[in-house]
């Protein structure tokens, strides 16, 4: 490596990553009630894959200019996003074994070059059939989801434990309480946060990192749908890595260090759908033959007709069979979507499965859907009223949704938005079934003219005692389905009052 070649912005690439990953996490950390004016969803709104899906489904918002810029940038700098900005890319890179070069055979490497084509075609097929399920693999959505369901609950419990330990020292108690109060609702919650399938998210994330064992940055090279989309634009790039053919001594150093397998054709050409302009190759070049310039010599992967048809068929099948899924028609009675959620079909098409709504929710009621909305609805948000309820003072989930799958509602509007309707199970409700007093649901119903009322019924118990019992009833037209009744119902396990989803 010659010192002269170590010039230019790429020298600071690590610093870019060290800024953008913490920035990403900082914005997500600030994504709590009440939302200020900082635009916290910048990464997801600026994600061209997500924006393209939103636009195709008819949702346009002014902030999407960022995504347009992001989509055009590869024309000039290739997939620099992957190497300089993407927080997921940074993590995958740092988790890669230090050993450079591929662990795959030459044949396998050629086969895996096709992968982005398949990823794009399958994504396109699902997009065409209005299923956003492919966004579950978007790197920014993946990282948001992982941080929401794993990192922040972990931080919550660690802070809790630190507080418990500090509490053993009486002198530290006041300070511990003060810190806990300050962090409450921000990093520590009244109840420790829980998310369904957190283990599955952990597995998926670990899997992405484990792919590094096959090849460094295997995920970024072959599977990342955002990388594939940026690469598609990169193919048209007018500026990229250039090699001075006179100076090149064909030593192969550049190919060995390239983290994205972009060096082609005896090292002189570049696969501009892959190059992230990290210029590790230039740094490794003993003759300083490599630079950034216009009119790069390209060597692009062109899928054979067979490959293309196979990918297209896979895409159409994936899209068609998600679109015709059983869960879209036979909606689960207990599937309740957050306030402002679009109708089921639109929600499934738009939702990025990123979990930002779950991050901002102050009561943890927003949970990833596992089975109620089918495989396609995996990780879309639903209300789990045994964990929490829709807080009367909060309407933040719609504001953080990067695609408008949950539409932003003003607080007053949210308070009249009907999510579902509560039904009392009189075979289990304490005053109905056990002739005891209760009325917790009536007490906590937040609707100003309570949607749960009670009657004072004179009853005779099976033992023959004459009692007057206050028994709750739901007034259907007042109930908004916020679920506070279901959350606080003292009947163990399954609440005796349950909110059911309604069809618009």
């Amino acid at each position: 490596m010659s010192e002269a070649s170590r010039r230019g912005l790429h020298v600071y690439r690590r610093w870019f990553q060290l800024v953008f990953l913490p920035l990403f996490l900082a914005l997500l950390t600030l994504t709590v009630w009440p939302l200020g004016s900082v635009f916290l969803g910048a990464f997801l709104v600026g994600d061209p894959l997500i924006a393209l899906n939103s636009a195709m489904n008819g949702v346009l918002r002014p902030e999407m200019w960022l995504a347009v810029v992001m989509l055009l940038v590869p024309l000039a700098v290739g997939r620099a996003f992957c190497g300089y900005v993407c927080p997921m890319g940074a993590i995958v890179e740092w988790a890669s074994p230090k050993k450079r070069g591929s662990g795959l055979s030459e044949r396998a490497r050629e086969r895996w070059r096709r992968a982005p084509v398949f990823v794009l075609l399958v994504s396109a097929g699902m997009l065409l059939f209005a299923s956003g399920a492919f966004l579950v693999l978007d790197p920014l959505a993946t990282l948001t989801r992982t941080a929401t369901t794993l990192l922040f609950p972990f931080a919550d419990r660690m802070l809790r434990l630190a507080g418990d330990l500090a509490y053993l020292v009486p002198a530290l108690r006041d300070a511990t309480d003060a810190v806990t109060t300050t962090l409450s609702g921000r990093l520590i919650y009244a109840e420790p946060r829980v998310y369904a399938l957190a283990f599955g998210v952990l597995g998926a994330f670990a899997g992405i990192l484990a792919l590094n064992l096959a090849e460094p940055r295997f995920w970024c090279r072959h599977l990342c749908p955002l990388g594939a989309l940026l690469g598609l634009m990169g193919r048209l790039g007018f500026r990229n890595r250039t090699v001075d053919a006179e100076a090149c001594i064909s030593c192969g150093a550049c190919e060995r260090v390239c983290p994205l397998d972009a060096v082609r054709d005896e090292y002189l050409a570049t696969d501009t759908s892959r190059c992230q302009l990290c210029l590790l190759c230039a740094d490794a070049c003993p003759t300083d033959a490599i630079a950034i310039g216009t009119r790069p010599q390209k060597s692009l992967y062109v899928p054979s007709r067979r490959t293309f048809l196979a990918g297209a068929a896979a895409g159409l099948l994936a899209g068609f069979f998600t679109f015709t899924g059983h869960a879209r028609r036979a909606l689960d009675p207990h599937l309740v979507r957050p306030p402002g959620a679009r109708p089921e079909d639109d929600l499934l098409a738009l939702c990025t499965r990123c979990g930002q709504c779950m991050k901002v929710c102050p009561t943890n009621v927003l949970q990833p859907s596992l089975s109620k909305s089918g495989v396609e609805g995996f990780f879309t948000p639903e209300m789990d009223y045994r964990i929490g309820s829709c807080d009367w003072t909060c309407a933040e989930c719609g504001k953080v949704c990067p695609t408008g799958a949950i539409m932003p509602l003003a607080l007053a509007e949210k308070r009249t938005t009907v999510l579902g309707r509560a039904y009392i199970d009189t075979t289990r409700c304490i005053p109905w079934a056990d002739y005891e007093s209760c009325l917790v649901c009536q007490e906590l119903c937040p609707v100003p003219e309570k949607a749960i009322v009670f009657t004072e019924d004179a009853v005779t118990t099976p033992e023959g005692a004459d009692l007057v019992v206050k028994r709750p009833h739901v007034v259907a037209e007042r109930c908004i389905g916020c679920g506070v009744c279901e959350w606080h119902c003292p009947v163990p396990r399954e609440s005796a009052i349950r909110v059911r989803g309604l069809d618009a």
Partner: protein
Amino acid sequence: MDRRDFCRVALGCTVIGCAGGLAGCARLLEWSASDTGAARVATMTAGPPPSAEPTAAGVPTSTPEPTPPPLPDLAVYRGDDPAANTRAAVVALGGMERFVRPGARVVVKPNIITGRDPELATTTNPQAVAEVVRMALEAGAASVVVFDRPTGDPRTSYTVSGIQAAVEAAGGSMKTLSDRNFERFEIPAGRELTSWPLVTDVFEADTFINMPIGKTHGLAGLTLSMKNLMGIMGGARGEVHQRFHQKIVDLATLVQPHLVILDAYRIMIRNGPTGGKLEDVATTKTVVAGTNMPSVDAYGTTLFGMQPTDLEYLRNAGEQGVGGIDLEALVIQEGTA
């Protein structure tokens, strides 16, 4: 093994060791949620806290007069300013110095059931709470801590109710309760409720001030000071709603606040205890202060046009000797602030 490998192994062992240590701590502390069933014994007595010095019991040591005038059981003050009403009522009871000694740790328990604007009378008037904080600090309190256990998210409740901002401006501090703040306490005189996890601060404070707001309540009839103590209960409070009218009295046999201030500047006359409509709020511009919860609550019922005996739990409290609910037998000082 070269140095790099050694560092790597050392780091790995450290991480594993720390994780194991943390897991061990977590097991020992049971993630804070320890409720082993073994209950702690604590006692509280109604009225002003016992004096530190063995001087005349209940009389502030700084008072120069040898025979202070007899103090009323209840002080009821009306006026346009919730803070001034509160101050006048406490002064009529002998001043905050009677309840707060210099250097005392003071705990104030308002009603912050959920987050609502103060105008909706769902939560205790923030100006009144702030005034109590100021008075306690004026009396020399070392710290004034304000908390409740809201039914929803504590942060939204503290913020929207306006109580957090008012208390902090007055020099007090809000506290968000964690599992570690609760401990199971024995209730020796309890008939239905014999032990329950309660906030330890209430028992460890030198002065505990109960500061409810008057509201209607489906099950209880009215929620006043006795019902307000449900906010210091941990655990699954839904279970308290069965045989409620005895359990709430049982709790009052154990937890006897030194000072009870019923905020009735605005009261909720329908759709309580959460409300949400201005039409359900009556502006009675009153504060009722006393040292005994059933007595304060007995007066509170009259603000709603009811009799103390209309509430089953008040009848129980009176019959079981927790406090006097016969307003005729109480010395009540009324005035305008």
